């Protein structure tokens, strides 16, 4: 899977996450470019494209983006959407 995270360094939290399947290689690059262009706080907001077998695997190798704390805003947004 491919994941693009937007991570705010000053709070240690994600402010956005996009998930893609492996076949969405090109759309994920387009999205990365779009997020890069839209990013008005590049010193504070990291935009990172990650690839792995699963999100659990990404939590293991890039735990700072996928800890419960880092994902708390994103999870809240999911709950709100429901």
């Amino acid at each position, binding site marked *: 899977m491919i994941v693009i995270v937007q991570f705010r*360094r*000053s*709070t*240690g939290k994600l402010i956005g996450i996009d998930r893609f399947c492996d076949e969405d*290689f090109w759309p994920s*690059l387009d999205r*990365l*470019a779009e*997020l*890069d262009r839209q*990013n008005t706080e*590049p*010193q504070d907001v*990291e*935009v*990172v*494209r*990650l*690839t*792995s*077998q699963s999100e659990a*695997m*990404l939590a*293991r*190798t*890039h*735990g*700072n983006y996928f*800890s419960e*704390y880092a994902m708390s805003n994103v999870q809240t947004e999911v709950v709100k959407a429901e």
Partner: protein
Amino acid sequence: MELSRARIDSLGEAIKSGDLNDVDQSVFSYLRSQWAELGNEISNRLILEFGNDNFGVSLRLKNLETIRSKLLRTTLRLSSLRDVVGARIVVNDGLILQNESVLRSVALFGDYAVKIIDRREFPSFGYRAVHVEVRHGLYLGEIQIRTPLQHEWARSMESLARLVGRDVRYGGEPVVDTYSPVVRNLLLNSYRDLVELGRRIELSEVGVLNDTAELFEGLTTINSLVIEIERKVR
């Protein structure tokens, strides 16, 4: 699009200046697609090779700003940045397994130009791991191979750097002026503890000390403290 090393490096200069014209933008887009394709190849091979080993395996593609920061922080040229495409393997045991995984990675990319950078022998401001550089034509990638302790240490330093400034990762002093005296002390002590834990991890991994559980506990404590401070001050 035909690219040369000189064209990539002139793009690097434009990225450093923050002044990318339309042509630079399209060259960067193309270059990023080439990096991503290299990353895809590296990732697929690593997952095939290590997918059944219960290791953590992933790939990260740097974005424009992180590339810019690195170019500004170092004397490297864009064509020689090896970690724009950065794979990471976290093995599930110590140095022997790490060494085996390095050899397997090198063999896996036998058709590429490969170089081993041993940051256990030459740590980078306390950061220890083994990196395997993979070159395919003009494009470079990197595979970071870490033991669990090396990985947790790097993760703790990354976390702490969010609060005390990212420069600590490159030898800078922690910046704590804006915090209350209590928080300032907690952060400075955590930084010192982390440096000390790094030294002990090295001794532990070569078998001089036998305190793995205690080291993990120390790193976990620092991570928890960082989160607690972030909750309170952010």
